[in-house]
């Protein structure tokens, strides 16, 4: 948490940073991101209340894939194409925190050197700080900040393991999944729900052996997938996905830039499709629904002990538990308390 600054002082500081951000001050943007990273939802709350009406304008691209698949190199290429058009681009590169030390080695900038001094580009490296899902809550706020700052495009790069793919899908308008040739049998990973989050498959490292084979594998998988109804009961994924869009598969060489303009065309056509088909709106609804749940979970967890212990009714409930009767077990009593909560807050 932030050190104990007087709250009015802290608020004044945030206000000041937001004003500076509005004037285009890049250091203020960076400091605001630091604030949400270190301060958590208490600080995000104050910032979001202020800047929210200025957000919702950026086009957000998610890029995910295994470590070493070329995400950062490709991110840089995609960014370059949009920078050439004179657009303002933000990049958020998320790397995992080491579970052993709590430290992290964030090396994504190395691949983005060619654009370092372009004032239309803002790159921020973030460690996920061990939170479930590669995209920490702070990352979502960083997206909001870069959005309010006026980025036309925001690219979020995150390593592709499990939950983080789902997270990226929640935050992005268009998600690219990178599947280079010859990296083990990671079609395994595809089975674990990747098809559902992918808008475009990128077979990067097309200069390597096996690229065409990889393309064929993906196309075959998509052929089969077309006949499978993706039902909504799958709790982990619960995908909002339009069957009218079959994810295209494209080969790229992120080092030479080969096929990058074609990839941009695909991105743009997905962007158009998602606007006209209503997919974009559906996804946004999905995203903010989950966002609200996350926020509530956070604040509820924080308050729940206090709420329960400070209410004398808890003693009656404990007495009931101690009676060892049917229906007075701790689970049943917790259900009763939960119901009281939900009645009070959401009806």
């Amino acid at each position, binding site marked *: *948490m*932030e050190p104990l600054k007087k709250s009015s002082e802290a608020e004044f500081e945030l206000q000041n940073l937001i004003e500076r951000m509005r004037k285009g001050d*890049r*250091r203020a943007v*960076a*400091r605001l*991101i*630091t604030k949400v*990273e*270190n*301060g*958590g939802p208490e600080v995000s709350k104050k910032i979001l209340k202020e800047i929210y009406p200025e957000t919702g304008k950026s086009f957000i691209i998610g890029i995910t894939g295994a470590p070493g698949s070329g995400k950062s190199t490709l991110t840089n290429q995609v960014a370059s194409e949009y920078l050439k058009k004179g657009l303002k681009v933000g990049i958020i590169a998320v790397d995992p*925190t*080491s579970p*052993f*030390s*709590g*430290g*992290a*080695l*964030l*090396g994504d*900038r*190395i691949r983005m*050197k060619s654009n*370092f*001094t372009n004032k239309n580009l*803002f*790159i*921020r*490296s973030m*460690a996920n*700080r061990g939170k479930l899902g590669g995209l920490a809550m*702070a990352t979502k706020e960083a997206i909001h900040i870069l959005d309010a700052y006026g980025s036309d495009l925001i690219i979020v790069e995150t390593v592709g393991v499990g939950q983080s793919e789902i997270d990226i899908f929640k935050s992005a308008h268009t998600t690219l999944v990178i599947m280079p040739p010859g990296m083990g049998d990671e079609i395994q990973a595809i089975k674990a729900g990747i098809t559902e989050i992918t808008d475009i498959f990128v077979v990067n490292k097309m200069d390597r052996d096996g690229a065409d084979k990889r393309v064929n594998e993906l196309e075959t998988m998509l052929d089969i997938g077309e006949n499978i109804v993706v039902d909504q009961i799958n709790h982990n994924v619960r995908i909002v996905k339009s069957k009218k869009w079959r994810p295209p598969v494209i080969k790229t060489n992120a080092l030479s830039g080969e096929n990058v303009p074609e990839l941009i065309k695909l991105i743009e056509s997905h962007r158009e499709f998602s606007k006209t088909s209503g997919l974009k709106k559906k996804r946004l609804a999905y995203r903010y629904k989950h966002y609200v749940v996350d926020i509530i979970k956070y604040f509820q967890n924080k308050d729940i002990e206090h709420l329960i212990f400070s209410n004398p009714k808890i003693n009656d409930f404990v007495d009931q538990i101690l009676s060892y009767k049917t229906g007075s077990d701790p689970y049943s009593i917790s259900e009763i308390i939960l119901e009281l909560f939900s009645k009070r807050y959401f009806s």
Partner: protein
Amino acid sequence: MGKNIRCIVAKPGLDGHDRGAKVISRGLRDAGLEIIYTGLHQTPDDIVESVVQEDPDVLLLSILSGAHTVLFPEIMKKFKEEGIDDVLVLGGGIIPDEDIVKMKEVGISEIFGPGTKIQEIVDYIKGHLKR
């Protein structure tokens, strides 16, 4: 949640390898810091721009080529222009004693020579953060 120390490790100058910088980066990572590694051949402008965007607590400049007498002061001058005054700046590498004084005068807080223990650097950082 909570504060983690963020540190940029940058390698200004033209010399061709970054083994030392990588070793330090891993060491500091294992000590619990978040290291933003920016790679070889960084110009002062690259470095200052990275500092602006990443908002680190610490900037560690690693150097071998002897160009520090020009590059370090240039970086510090750009810091002043940008109004960056709360980043702890450290140097690492082979830097002659007589230069160390000069480097400190322009605002490099400490210089760590080859063979410095990681723990020594970590302790120094923790004791000298500027915010």
